Structure formats: structure tokens, C-alpha cells
């Protein structure tokens, strides 16, 4: 079983919220609506979903005639095999080099579109820029990326939700693993993070989430 344990990291996922899974809460998403329009044609595009495995999402993407990819970045980022001793005694940090060597390994400019959801808000600090850069490198020129960012009003205890696609303008939120919100990005920080993209549009949701559609 050793190779399988290594394959799947052997790490432990964050503790589950009571009632993880279960009820889904519908949420209209203007950002996702624009993302869908951006990838409507032609058929056969490659779309990467960086969230947890969602049957709804995979069905939606393949239903558009595209090829769906799934790669749960947050689960990978919290795998024990990537943890190394930190600068302070007793602390740990992420082995960024090893993470990038083993995860998100795709050919350059592979994907026509990427669903990043709110990954950046929950990634360990040392991974944010490297992961964003890796995503940029594997996205085709003119490719679309949808990312969500919490606003300050969301609060430090903002729970982590999985996003399921219900239709081209509606998402469903479902309790996910107990990931901790790591930071709140200001708009200028978001612009700096994605400075290589040619277009950036902000959509503000009622639930303290900024939806951002980027074109590489």
C-alpha cells in the first residue's frame, strides 16, 4: 500500500465541519455567468477545476462539450508530505519546491479556462504567488480564470465552502473541510497578484465575496 499512500499523500485533511457535505445553499453568481459565456464556444476546450471533486461541476463542463480536469489544490497544499520545519521552533511551513514539483504539473498553456474559486484565500502564504504563477503558465493566452476573494466583512472565521455548479448563473455552497481563512486581499493586492493578465473584472456579491474574472 506504500505506493498508494505516497500517491495520495498520506496526509490528513483538515477536520471536517459538523455536517460537512449535506445541504447545499444556492447562490447567484454574476462572475460565473460571465465565465460561462467566455467558454461557451468552441467545443472541446480544456477547463481546470481547482476545487474538490464535484459531480455537478464535471457534468456541467462536459455538458458544454469540453474536457474537464479536476485538481483539488487546497487538499494537496495541506498534505503532510509537503510540511517541513519552519523558522520558529515547533512551527512548520510548506516545501514550495516539492509542492510545485509534484502538483499542478501540466504542460505550459494547456488550459482554456480555470476555476480557481477562493483557493487563494485559504492557501498557505508561501504558496500563494507560486501557485498563481503556475496557474498563469498553464493557461492559454486569452484563457479565462474565475477567482473568488473574501472581503474584510467576511470575518476571520469565514467558513470554507465547496462550490457546486447548478447552472450557468447559479452556484451551490456546501460545507467543506475546516480550512482556515488565511488573509483578506485588497483589490490592489489582487491586481498585483494577477498583473500579467490582460483583463480583470470585479463583481461584488452580497455575501462578502468578490468574484473576479480574468483573461490571460
Amino acid at each position: 500500500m506504500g505506493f498508494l499512500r505516497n500517491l495520495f499523500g498520506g496526509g490528513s485533511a483538515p477536520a471536517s465541519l459538523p455536517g460537512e457535505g449535506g445541504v447545499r445553499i444556492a447562490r447567484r453568481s454574476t462572475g460565473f455567468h460571465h465565465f460561462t459565456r467566455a467558454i461557451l464556444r468552441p467545443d472541446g476546450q480544456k477547463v481546470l477545476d481547482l476545487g474538490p471533486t464535484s459531480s455537478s461541476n464535471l457534468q456541467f463542463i462536459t455538458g458544454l462539450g469540453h474536457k474537464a480536469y479536476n485538481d483539488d489544490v487546497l487538499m494537496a497544499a495541506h498534505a503532510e508530505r509537503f510540511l517541513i520545519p519552519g523558522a520558529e521552533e515547533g512551527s512548520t511551513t510548506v516545501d514550495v519546491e516539492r509542492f510545485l514539483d509534484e502538483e499542478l504539473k501540466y504542460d505550459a498553456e494547456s488550459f482554456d479556462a480555470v476555476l480557481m474559486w477562493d483557493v487563494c484565500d485559504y492557501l498557505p502564504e508561501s504558496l500563494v504567488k507560486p501557485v498563481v504563477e503556475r496557474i498563469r503558465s498553464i493557461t492559454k493566452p486569452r484563457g479565462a480564470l474565475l477567482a473568488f476573494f473574501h472581503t474584510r466583512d467576511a470575518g476571520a472565521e469565514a467558513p470554507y465552502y465547496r462550490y457546486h455548479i447548478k447552472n450557468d448563473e447559479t452556484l451551490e455552497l456546501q460545507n467543506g473541510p475546516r480550512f482556515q481563512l488565511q488573509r483578506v486581499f485588497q483589490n490592489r493586492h489582487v491586481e498585483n497578484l494577477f498583473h500579467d493578465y490582460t483583463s480583470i473584472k470585479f463583481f461584488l456579491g452580497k455575501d462578502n465575496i468578490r468574484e473576479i474574472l480574468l483573461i490571460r
Partner: protein
Amino acid sequence: MEPNRSDVAHIGKSVIIKGELSGSEDLYLDGEVEGNIDLHNHNLVIGPNGRVRANVFAKDVVIHGTVDGSVTGVNKVELKKSALLNGDIMTQRIVIEDGAFFKGSIDIRKGEPAKAQPAVVGTPVASANTVAAVAVDREK
């Protein structure tokens, strides 16, 4: 969960196989396989104890256990909630239960998907009318 044993071939959880599996009957696999699995027009169920490091080709593929390799289901691929799949899927229809873990790509092909190219080649085993199961080792 386990099918009627008289209907399908059965590989138990203590069995470890290294090589190529092929056959002309349905298969319930609950052991460990490293190689390739080709059931062509028949169905494959990978049980909850099943651990497969192989490319898989079958008509319907239902996964409860762990797979590292590409999976081609001519008709359907189904990931149950305990499934762990790291590899690409090619099929006409996909069903994924909440809780399943999947990392890879899904290519929906209406009409018969082409057989996946084997990436792992083990010790060749001659195909037979029934599943050729070569038990290399048994866990104690």
C-alpha cells in the same frame, strides 16, 4: 455490495496480481493489481479493498476502492463515495458520488471510446476465455 459469486469472476482482497488481466466475463476485484486490465465488453467492479495501479478498459466500471491509472468505460464509469482515482477517464457517461476523490481529466465520448494505451506493462499473461489471475503473493 458484492455480486452473486456465480455470476462474475471474483478476486479477493488478499490477492495481489502483477501482470495483465483480460477476460470475457464480468469481474469483481477486491485485491491489488499492478498492470493492465482489459475486460472489453464486460463490467468491472473495484471493491472497497481494491487497489489498482493499472490502466483499465471495460464496458461499465464501478469504483469503490483506489485506482492509479486511466479508466476507459465504454458505456459508463461510476465513482462511489469511497473511491480514490488518480488518472484520466474516458467514457460515454460518468457518475460521481459525493465524497469520491478524483484527480485527472474526464473526456466524454459519445459512441465507443477508444481503448486506452497501456502505460504500465507488467509480465505478459496469456488471455483466456476466463480471467487469468496470476496470484504472485498472498497477504498473511
